[in-house]
């Protein structure tokens, strides 16, 4: 328990202290909100789909969370290069708790970043459909954050250095974001695209966020939550397996 707590605390401390990282990670969502939200808004409205800013705000929150969570997980690679990973690998605590603490820390940090984007979106003109939906939305954010923190650590456990980072961003994270329905409604897309989106866990996360924040969703809420919980459990399990196999 102590080990989980201290690893969690480390992630949170590092995050809170890196002001530039927090602000830097807000730039992209802001750009998406303003450029896409206002830019495509009129077209979206003309197509009879309603307010685009409201529609993409949950998508952009989801995008921010996946970026932060994966990036945080990838810090395992930095820790390997700067040597700190060894310190945790020889400690007499199970690697499961090390991995768990890191995942929880990464998830906390990513959720915080998601909340910041929610606030930013509110400033930009986004209004949640009801106040009572905000708390469950936090829970969904935390679930998304847990899922992708575990995935980030799993991927990082398999990589030796940061050279693979670009590869992961372009062939894993970007597709996960763009195929998730973060930016477009999944209701009327071609069947093939919908089929792909159905394999993307982020689709369900963003769908559930939309359910609570704007009161509209593509999939049943029960399906959203079941998929998120199941995939999170699988990634946690796989992540701790690969993490425990790391040789330094």
């Amino acid at each position: 328990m102590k080990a989980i707590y201290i690893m969690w605390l480390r992630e949170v401390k590092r995050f809170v202290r890196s002001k530039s990282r927090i602000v830097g990670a807000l730039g992209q969502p802001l750009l998406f909100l303003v450029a896409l939200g206002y830019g495509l808004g009129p077209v979206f409205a003309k197509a009879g789909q309603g307010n685009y800013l409201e529609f993409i705000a949950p998508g952009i929150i989801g995008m921010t969370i996946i970026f932060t969570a994966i990036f945080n997980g990838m810090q395992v690679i930095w820790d390997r290069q700067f040597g700190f990973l060894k310190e945790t690998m020889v400690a007499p605590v199970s690697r499961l708790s090390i991995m768990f603490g890191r995942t929880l820390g990464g998830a906390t940090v990513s959720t915080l970043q998601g909340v910041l984007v929610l606030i930013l979106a509110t400033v930009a003109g986004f209004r949640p459909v009801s106040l009572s939906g905000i708390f469950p939305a936090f829970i969904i954010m935390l679930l998304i954050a847990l899922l992708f923190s575990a995935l980030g650590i799993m991927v990082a456990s398999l990589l030796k250095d940061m050279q693979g980072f670009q590869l992961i961003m372009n062939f894993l994270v970007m597709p996960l974001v763009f195929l998730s329905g973060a930016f477009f409604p999944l209701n009327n897309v071609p069947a093939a695209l919908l089929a792909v989106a159905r394999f993307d866990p982020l689709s369900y996360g963003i769908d559930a966020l939309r359910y609570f924040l704007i009161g509209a969703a593509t999939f049943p809420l029960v399906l959203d939550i079941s998929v998120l919980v199941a995939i999170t459990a699988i990634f946690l399990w796989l992540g701790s397996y690969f993490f425990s196999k790391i040789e330094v």
Partner: protein
Amino acid sequence: MANIIEVKDLVKKFGDFVAVKDVTFSVEEGGIFAFLGPNGAGKSTTIKMLTTLLRPTSGLVRINGYDPLTHPDAARHSFGIVFQDPSLDEDLTALENLELHGALYNVPKNILKARIDELLTLVELSDRRNDFVRDFSGGMKRRLEIARGLLHHPKIIFLDEPTLGLDPQTRNHLWSYVQKLNADEGITVFFTTHYMEEADRIAKNIAIIDHGVIIAQGSSGELQKQTDTKTLEEAFLKLTGNAIRDEVASSSDKMRTHSQRWRGGRR
């Protein structure tokens, strides 16, 4: 006395490069053991296998009676280690690094605070405790690293070239602290160094490894007698030859890239 470290026929291969060919030795409980060898001889690879960081290709290892392979947590409970290369979190303060270590090793709070004070005084970093490690010089990081390794008093402590880059004052402080730990608490000390006079002065037993094989074992006096020399340094040079080991170092680099490529290709 019983042996607390037991190593038999230990082998480690990286692809077709054999880093540790066949290593057998033992360290008795409460002893001070020096593990000497030229660069690239297999010292650090052996230590990594003893401390659960690497899986041996074959052979037997017992740390405090536990096999690091099958009972890693029990083995890890038995030792502390100061690594040869840095392993601090530079984005935390000195104190936070120590507290993190204390939490990982479950050192009780009241003891932890007293020990942190004691050790920070030992390595003369008391007034820098709240500074970030990233602002430290190389020597200061080294000292902090040593303080951290000694924080929980384990049964065995591994020191992999602990005094590299330290001034003679700090070196002397360090060794007298280590000797005190050994005498007062019976902590077994296993260290590597390139300073032969340190090994001569501190270690009760010495093993010399070269090209992945133990080539001599015994006390400093015994090694000198064996080689008919007057100092440990002469004995060491006579046993390992005068050639400078650039060749070995570069081939171990090659081995590293090779193993990386191999692992990369597999995945």
